[in-house]
């Protein structure tokens, strides 16, 4: 017996039968009574479950329709939430933490440059007239770099907020910076006194000697190289890891979102299908067009949102892996290059430790563009060959063959590694042209460095090679740094653009989601109402 067919049953729960028994139905009345008693017994003993839900067709129809609307709203809620999450993730990485991390990468650069200016200043004071650089200019650059360092440290500090370890590192760096500035100030003063013909009567009749100045400078330089620079570099690395973690979290969140949207979408489609089938069975219509339409809209909506979330996640990942990581690598290469440049000055200035500074310079150069080479001369020769080959110029075969053996997969190093993007087809032509320009400038820098070291025997000549003219170490370094800055800027712009594009893709859902859900609601109502009307009208 199909439940629900037939007239609305009266109460079955006991009470005398409602009609007086007639002769014709005496037997059936007894049977009815027996059936009712049996049914009550079974009900009392719990073997027949109470009926679920409304027992009338309009009631059931309404219930199903409400279920559909509920499922639609559920999908709307989930989709809305996760589209919002996607937007937030992009904003946090693309507009807050990403740019801050990139700004903090300038810290090392600024600090290293500060020390380079001080070293150059001491050299200039010691060399006398013909050094080729202006003391005032060096001091002005020092001041600029100090301001840059403070600004970068501020950005790093903001990124570090909430992370106790990172905050302490930033605080310690601030303290060290203060100490360094004090020392540097003393060095500049002392060096100036050494440079002038010191009036008799100061310091007991003798002016400060060059050795005194170098000794004091060594203290400052050690503070910079042993305390400040490592902390600054580590701060930048930590900033990068904050961005990476944020991007990973966002990606996981969006993956979860996709699954949930699919789940609610399936739920919605299922309830709509249930409604459709019920109506088909009850009212013997094949297909209700509005309900079918609702199913279609639901499926399209769910698929659309899932696709959008996937695109946003991918856009964020690409922006982080292609642009942000490259920008950080280039920033680090610039920073290390700045310190290596300082080592070039210190090589001339602190002759007692010339060996160490030469070694340090070589190692830093190798982390920027790695080619195997035990000595500076070997490195310069091999480096020039490898870079020239990359740029498509003529090269000495033997030197190149040696290098290629060790560099099977292409150039290594923070800058060298950026060329691999081109070979893998990942990089865009704009940034590759920039990288090539930086490499060409780097070759010039290596050549200028070689000239300076050759002239190391004569102090004045060496200082000239260091500081004077466009082909000096300082000149070529400035061009190299400029080329690197351009590459970094290109990556930053690309990062920003890609994040914006990904965010724009999420924009339409602001109106599409409510509109789509409203459409589903309308279609469900449109499908159900005529049936309801038809049914109650038939009474």
């Amino acid at each position: 017996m199909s439940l629900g067919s037939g007239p609305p049953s009266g109460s079955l729960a006991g009470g005398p039968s409602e009609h007086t028994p007639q002769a014709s139905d005496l037997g059936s009345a007894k049977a009815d009574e027996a059936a009712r008693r049996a049914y009550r017994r079974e009900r009392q003993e719990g073997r027949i479950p109470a009926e679920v839900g409304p027992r009338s067709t309009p009631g059931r129809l309404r219930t199903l329709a409400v279920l559909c609307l509920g499922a639609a709203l559920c999908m709307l809620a989930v989709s809305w939430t996760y589209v919002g999450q996607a937007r937030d993730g992009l904003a946090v990485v693309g507009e807050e933490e990403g740019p801050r991390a990139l700004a903090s990468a300038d810290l090392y650069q600024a600090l290293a440059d500060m020390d380079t200016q001080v070293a150059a200043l001491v050299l200039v004071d010691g060399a006398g007239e013909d050094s080729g650089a202006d003391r005032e200019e060096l001091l002005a650059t020092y001041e600029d770099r100090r301001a840059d360092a403070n600004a970068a440290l501020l950005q790093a500090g903001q990124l570090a907020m909430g992370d106790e370890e990172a905050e302490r590192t930033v605080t310690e760096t601030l303290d060290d910076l203060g100490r360094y500035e004090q020392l540097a100030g003393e060095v500049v003063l002392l060096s100036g006194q050494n440079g002038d013909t010191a009036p008799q009567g100061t310091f007991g009749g003798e002016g400060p000697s060059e050795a005194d100045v170098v000794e004091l400078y060594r203290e400052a330089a050690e503070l910079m190289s042993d305390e400040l620079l490592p902390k600054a570099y580590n701060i930048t690395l930590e900033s990068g890891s904050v961005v990476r973690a944020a991007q990973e979290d966002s990606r996981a969140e969006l993956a979860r979102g996709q699954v949930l949207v699919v789940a609610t979408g399936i739920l919605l489609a299922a309830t709509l299908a249930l409604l459709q089938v019920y109506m088909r069975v009850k009212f013997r219509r094949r297909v209700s067009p509005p309900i079918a339409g609702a199913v279609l809209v639901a499926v399209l909506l769910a698929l659309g949102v899932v696709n959008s979330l996937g695109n946003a996640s991918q856009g964020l990942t690409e922006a982080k892996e292609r642009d942000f990581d490259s920008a950080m690598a280039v920033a680090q290469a610039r920073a290390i290059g700045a310190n290596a440049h300082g080592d070039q000055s210190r090589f001339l200035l602190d002759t007692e430790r010339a060996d160490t500074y030469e070694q340090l310079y070589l190692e830093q150069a190798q982390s920027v563009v790695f080619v195997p080479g035990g000595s500076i001369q070997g490195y310069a020769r091999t480096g020039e060959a490898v870079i020239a080959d990359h740029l498509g110029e003529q090269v000495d075969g033997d030197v190149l063959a040696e290098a290629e053996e060790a560099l099977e997969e292409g150039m290594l190093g923070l800058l060298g590694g950026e060329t691999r993007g081109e070979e893998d087809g990942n990089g865009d032509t704009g940034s590759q042209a920039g990288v090539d320009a930086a490499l060409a400038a780097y070759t010039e820098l290596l050549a200028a460095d070689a000239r300076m070291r050759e002239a190391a025997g004569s102090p004045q000549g060496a200082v000239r090679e260091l500081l004077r003219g466009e082909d000096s170490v300082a000149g070529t370094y400035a061009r190299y740094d400029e080329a690197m800055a351009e590459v970094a800027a290109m990556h930053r712009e690309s990062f920003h653009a890609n994040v914006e594009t990904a965010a724009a893709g999420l924009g339409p859902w602001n109106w599409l989601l409510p509109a789509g859900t409203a459409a589903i609601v309308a279609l469900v109502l449109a499908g159900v109402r005529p049936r309801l009307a038809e049914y109650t009208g038939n009474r």
Partner: protein
Amino acid sequence: MPTSRLIRPLLAVGTATAALAAGCSALAADAGSILDQDTVTIGVKGDQPGLGLEVSDGRFEGFDVDVAEFIAAELGFEPEDVEFVEVPSAVREYVLMERDAEPEELEALDVDESLLPGVEVDMVVATYSITAARRQLVNFAGPYYGAQQDILVSAEDTETENVRDLEGATLCQGAGSNSANRIVEERGVGAEIEETDTYAECLDRLAEGSIDAVSTDNLILAGFALEDPDAFRMVNAPFTAERYGVGLRKSDVAGCEEVNRAITAMYRVEEEEGTSPAERMLEDWFAETGLELNTSVPQFEGCA
């Protein structure tokens, strides 16, 4: 009636979706960071006194071991969940690549399989110098210490003061090491090189007098010299930087970053003690050598 007939399929769909979701999120998880593990296996040296020396089966001691224990504790591992195994220099990359790399890549490393520890190693703290070439294969956290190359001579030799004084001398280096080349090639000092299997043998020859000097990382030299302090003298004129890193799997960026934080904590001066854990560890093992120790946090390599 349609309602009850449909409930079962509906339930089936619901369960399937839930199962799919669970399965998908499990697949989407990373290839497994060290941070998700309950136990950790750390590879150390077994034959370098002061740094990594096996004192009994499975028990090691030395500066590297102390550093590894500190890092494991910072990462949240209990001491009983930490296992140490010996990992010789030649197989350090292999053990870290074993889990994730393709068989051809492992073949290309061409290692002597008898040197492998036979268990999956998660972290290597074994005087593992960071180089650009190694960075292509593994991830390096740290460095946790910047050693420098120095020279060890016989205690009777009072004339050798720096690397240039080695002109014409006979140097000894362990197999697979690069230290002596640094002097001859990079500094251009004309010295003769003799190679032995291990640095322990070099020290024996130095004690005998058949070679003039041994040159390698100053921590390694200090550890050996401590075994017989009156026989040797550290010249204390360091001339290169060897950065000892913590080797990790290439894919484990999150673990690498966390180890970096642990190393930063290791160098943080504790207010009550007045020293940092790193300083105490270095003093424990190397104070007697008279070696100048670095107690500021080194510049990290960065996790790829």
